[in-house]
């Protein structure tokens, strides 16, 4: 076989990386290179440097070190039993690509993951070497995200956290049984243990010792994980329950949901459907409500008997329609918690309402003026000159919001 060029490898190893949903580069320690001795900066929120036609943000150079893999996870294009073309970057190639892309302002940094070659330790150690060369050889101060291999030795995880801003370990599927069925070499217990390790190391790093010194730097942007949605039969209630446990137990920054998407050379084990993108979107919305709006999993998933979210309506609206007795709420008097439950009102709108109503009573037009999505909120609120009357309880309220039934097309 002819030697592969850098372009060939880049094509194969970015193609293989696109199933990881995360491209975040936010929330790490602030750094810059004003001293002129290095390259790069991180300041609070990351930047999306481009968007692909799939609507996803491109913030990091997201690649696999290699797509050779000795494992056989059914949902994965790189599994040992697939015929996908294989490639492997040299450490130098990864370092140079990252630096040269960064200098041209294409990216915020690197997201490196890998198939498992030889052994988990050997693979993790190669990845750590790349991160080390970026930091120490190139004085790179941009963002680094390393996908961590659960079975790798603790020393390697420690080093990974020293060089990287974020670590992630994918739980892959919502239940232990699904992991066993579709990722036979992976062990859910080991995965959780690895996440627990990352959490406690991060806590140690944040503590000051008796000399007042901080611990060694460890993944300042925390850890995240990913779950594939739609490959197994788990319901949304199961998925969101799992997320809630993960957020709580391991202090994850994010749980990513990745709609299972057909891959080239798929196994017969899995459905070759269109990826359930709407479902993925609803899960992200629900996840948001759980973390920032004071909702519980039960509340959000109670609307439907099958434990899945309503695909036609956003989860807050679906909840409000089920709980109309709590509405309408008076924007001039309601508590912050209750305002946050009004469909359409986000944290920003609620902040504006609270600050403005100190000065005067709010009218419908005032809400419009401050950019609140009033159309959606209308049936659920009272303002000085607005009451929804019978609208709140009207039988066809749902129909106002649900998309019209799909037109039939010719067979």
């Amino acid at each position, binding site marked *: 076989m002819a030697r592969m060029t850098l372009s060939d490898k880049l094509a194969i190893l*970015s193609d293989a990386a696109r199933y990881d949903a995360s491209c975040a580069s936010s929330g790490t320690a602030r750094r810059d*290179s004003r001293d002129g001795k290095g390259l790069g900066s991180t300041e609070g929120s990351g930047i999306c440097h481009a968007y*692909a036609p799939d609507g996803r*943000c491109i913030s990091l150079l997201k690649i696999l070190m290699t797509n050779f893999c000795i494992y056989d996870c059914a949902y994965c294009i790189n599994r040992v039993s697939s015929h996908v073309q294989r490639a492997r970057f040299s450490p130098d190639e990864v370092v140079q690509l990252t630096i040269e892309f960064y200098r*041209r302002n294409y990216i915020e940094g690197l997201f490196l993951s890998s198939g498992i070659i030889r052994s988990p330790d050997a693979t993790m150690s190669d990845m750590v070497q790349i991160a080390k060369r970026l930091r120490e050889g190139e004085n790179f101060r941009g963002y680094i995200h390393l996908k961590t291999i659960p079975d790798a030795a603790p020393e390697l995880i420690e080093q990974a956290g020293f060089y990287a801003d974020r670590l992630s370990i994918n739980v892959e599927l919502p239940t232990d049984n699904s992991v066993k069925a579709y990722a036979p070499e992976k062990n859910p217990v080991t995965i959780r243990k690895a996440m627990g390790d990352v959490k406690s190391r991060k806590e140690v790093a944040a503590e000051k010792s008796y000399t007042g010194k901080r611990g060694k730097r460890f993944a300042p942007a925390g850890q995240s994980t990913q779950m594939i949605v739609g490959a197994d039969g788990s319901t949304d209630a199961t998925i969101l329950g799992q997320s809630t446990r993960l957020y709580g137990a391991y202090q994850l920054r994010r749980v990513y949901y990745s709609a299972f998407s057909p891959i080239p050379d*798929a196994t*017969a084990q899995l459905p070759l459907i269109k990826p359930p993108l709407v479902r993925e979107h609803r899960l992200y919305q629900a996840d948001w409500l759980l973390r920032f709006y004071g909702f519980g999993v039960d509340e959000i998933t109670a609307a439907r008997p099958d434990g899945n979210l309503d695909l036609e309506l956003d989860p807050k609206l679906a909840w409000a329609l089920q709980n109309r007795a709590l509405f309408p709420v008076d924007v001039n008097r309601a508590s912050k918690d209750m305002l946050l439950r009004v469909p359409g009102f986000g944290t920003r709108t609620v902040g504006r309402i609270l600050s403005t109503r100190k000065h005067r009573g709010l009218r419908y037009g005032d809400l419009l003026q401050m950019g609140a999505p009033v159309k959606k909120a209308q049936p659920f609120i009272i303002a000085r000159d607005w009451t929804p009357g019978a609208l709140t309880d009207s039988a066809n309220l749902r129909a106002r919001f649900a998309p019209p039934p799909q037109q039939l097309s010719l067979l």
Partner: protein
Amino acid sequence: MYTVPLPRIGTDLAWRDAAKRLIGAAIPPQDVLWDFGSEMGELFATATPLPPPSRRIKAPQSFIQMADTVVWHKDPQRFARLYAMLWRLRHETGLMQDRADQHLAKLRQMEKGVNRCKHKMKAFVRFRDLRQGGDRRSFAAWFEPTHHTVEPTAPFFARRFADMDWMIATPDVTAQFVDGNLSFHPGQPKPDLPEDGAEALWGIYFCNIFNPARVKIQAMTSEMPKKYWKNLPEAQHIHDLIAGAEAKMQKMQDAAPTIPPERAERIQKQLRQQKDDDQ
């Protein structure tokens, strides 16, 4: 009547200085004309000197921050609007918290526009390697901002790309960073920048990180509006990616499951053996 000339470079400081003097002398908004970049020409050039700087003028911190951003908006009315707001703030305390005030809402909207433009500039500037040799590498970019955002955004690039020299040329203002010093110069026509081989690699990355099974064009264009495409090397691929997506997806679905390659069985066997040995 006062006519206040405001330069294209250093607009923020010039506006703030003039506003302080005028407010200090209680000059009402209708008596002030703001002339940005001498656009008004000779006709309005008056000789009335601005009032001298007077006692310390106070304004809410939130206004000062907003003004520092809004001055870079392209709307010719921005200075007058800001001054009118400052005028009202002399007596209307709490005005800055009133999110339902129309004039404030307009200024906030302009502020948002400038912030978005700054953000997009940080995202979409694309440098090319000038390959000049020497100790420091040097790069240059051509960019077309919507508002006058080069000056307030350049410090971001200085913090990030401090170990190299760079230039961001725009029709409005050009920023230059040489040996650690940032300077601003008048805008210019698009310069001829040398080809850069990295753009081809970046294009390959852009094409392959795209998942043809998830086309969402609207989500892309709302964040990366078409007006930016002509200066983004990766954007030339968008058309073909969208056109070919359906076929790629179909191919994946039609492909019958394959029989695993021979080596798979071998590797898996080893793996199982290892596991057994470990236990």
